[in-house]
């Protein structure tokens, strides 16, 4: 994600000639983005210092919401669940996507067809996926009772650890194809000559993977990981439809807590505090991953961007 690399816009194309004013062309996008992006972002900070039930008037409330949220005994658990889902889904998706991406990068005809089927989950909405899995995993009406296999008749969404595992699995089911696709196009950009040279030097397949593929995919891995990690903060649809945060609060992530606090308990102040925490965690993770990519070299990644 170049985004994280930042950097000033480059004016290569424009340096060619004196141009009339073009600045106004940015205005429509700027206006909409400020109205529904920037102002809400500032607004969420403002609302975190207020008291509002979502309908009536908004009252200033100082640090009350912050105090309430930060001392909430459930907060550590929410953070724990959020990071656990993030880490588990990253740790599962990355190696699998990498393997599959390398495999799909081959140009054999059958692999192209395989890819067509493989990418179908990318097209489904999280809500539809969650609805389908909820039916599939229903202990009374789903997979287990249909097949009469005891092991599959578990109460998948009714037990804390199982429910969390199911969430991680479905997230992977939904997104591994996407990340494989990213790795596939990353692998296809590695110059063939590098492998040819390695082959002449007698390097084996695994050695080639370790010494060429992995280092060459460094930025792809960082981009894919950033998307997984920052994206996992906003898994809302899937968990909301699948478990609504349950059983108990076993799958209640920050995003879910924000929704429940704000739109079900009508406490917009504390919900805004959670939203601010979400933004800060997201920014911190994005910056951290960018740092991992090597601060200096990320500029060169912007080449042509």
């Amino acid at each position, binding site marked *: 994600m170049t985004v994280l690399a930042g950097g000033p816009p480059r004016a290569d194309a424009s340096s060619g000639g004196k141009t009339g004013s073009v600045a106004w062309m940015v205005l429509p996008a700027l206006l909409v983005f400020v109205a529904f992006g920037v102002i809400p972002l500032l607004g969420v900070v403002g609302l975190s210092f207020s008291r509002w039930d979502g309908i009536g008037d908004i009252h200033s409330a100082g640090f009350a919401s912050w105090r309430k949220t930060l001392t909430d005994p459930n907060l550590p658990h929410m953070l724990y669940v959020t990071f656990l889902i993030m880490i588990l889904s990253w740790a599962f998706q990355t190696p699998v996507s990498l393997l599959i991406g390398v495999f799909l990068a081959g140009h054999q005809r059958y692999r192209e067809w395989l890819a067509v089927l493989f990418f179908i989950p990318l097209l489904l909405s999280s809500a539809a996926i969650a609805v389908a899995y909820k039916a599939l995993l229903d202990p009374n009406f789903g997979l287990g009772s*249909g097949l009469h296999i005891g092991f599959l008749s578990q109460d998948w969404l009714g037990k804390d650890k199982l429910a969390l595992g199911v969430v991680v699995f479905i997230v992977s089911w939904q997104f591994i194809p996407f990340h494989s696709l990213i790795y596939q196009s990353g692998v296809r950009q590695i110059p063939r000559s590098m492998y040819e040279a390695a082959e002449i030097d007698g390097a084996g397949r695994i050695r080639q993977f370790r010494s060429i593929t992995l280092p060459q995919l460094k930025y792809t891995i960082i981009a894919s990981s950033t998307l997984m990690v920052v994206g996992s903060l906003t898994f809302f649809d899937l968990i909301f*439809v699948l478990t609504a945060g349950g059983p108990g609060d076993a799958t209640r992530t920050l995003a879910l807590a924000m929704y429940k606090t704000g739109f079900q308990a009508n406490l917009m102040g504390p919900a805004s505090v959670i939203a601010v925490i979400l933004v800060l965690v997201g920014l911190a993770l994005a910056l951290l991953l960018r740092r991992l990519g090597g601060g200096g070299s990320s500029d060169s990644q912007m080449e*042509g961007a």
Partner: protein
Amino acid sequence: MATTTAASVDSSPEVRSPRHSRRKAAGRRNWLGGLAGWLWLAVVLIPIYWIVITSFKTQSGYYATNAFKPPASPTIDNYRLVIQSDFPQYFINSVVVTAGTIVPAVLISFMAAFAIVRGNSLFLTGVNGMFLMGLAIPLQATIIPVYLIIIRLKLYDSLSAIILPSIAFAIPLSVLVLANFIRDVPKELFESMRVDGASEWTTLWRLVFPLTRPALVTVSIYNGLAVWNGFLLPLILTQSPARRTLPLAVWTFQGQYGNNVPAILAAVVLTTLPILVLYAIGRRQLLSGLTAGFNK
């Protein structure tokens, strides 16, 4: 970077030159990758297979038969039930929201990207920086103030309530990808337009628009998919059944017909069908569109 990706995807038919296939054929096989690939394909396809066959079973047949056996006498009653449950209306809502978002979003992002590439001022640099920041921030976290703004604009429970924030959320990535493509337009072409006395506005539509068409399609597909499948904005910003979009409708349908698994799955299939049809038609474009912008 996006440029390179898309370029390489576009050129993939040429890339599939005999040289590479020979290298693969001669090279050792990637057993581990192959194993992972086929295994995960099974993991992907088994639930989809189950969804499809179950949607053609009767409710009683569903409990009576093996879950993975296709129905002996398929029925389309489930689909009839779904269609009678106002799904055509929800479908239209989804189409309106998706089209209403991507057309303006892509056009204004395109203009902004053009200005950012062609212009040369502190103001434009600042605006670009702001868009880039928007990519690192989980915009869903701003939903509460968005809700407040929508209420104050008296747009709550309308399709515009979904469209306006969706446009804003689509802008950062669209501007980034489009600016990358516009930078690739050769300087000489701009120069010759200028010599011909064309204004920037004319240059934008006559020169740059046709040249960046693949990027515009890519950005439209990416945003279109996100909006079509969006759940949070419709959930929070609308209320009445008449404004429901498809993802929300599937969810409420499940609440209504909790035990009728075949009917629920028919709803899942029906809401996905339009996208699957588009996928079948424009597969290559769609797949390249999804990853453009994520590789160097």
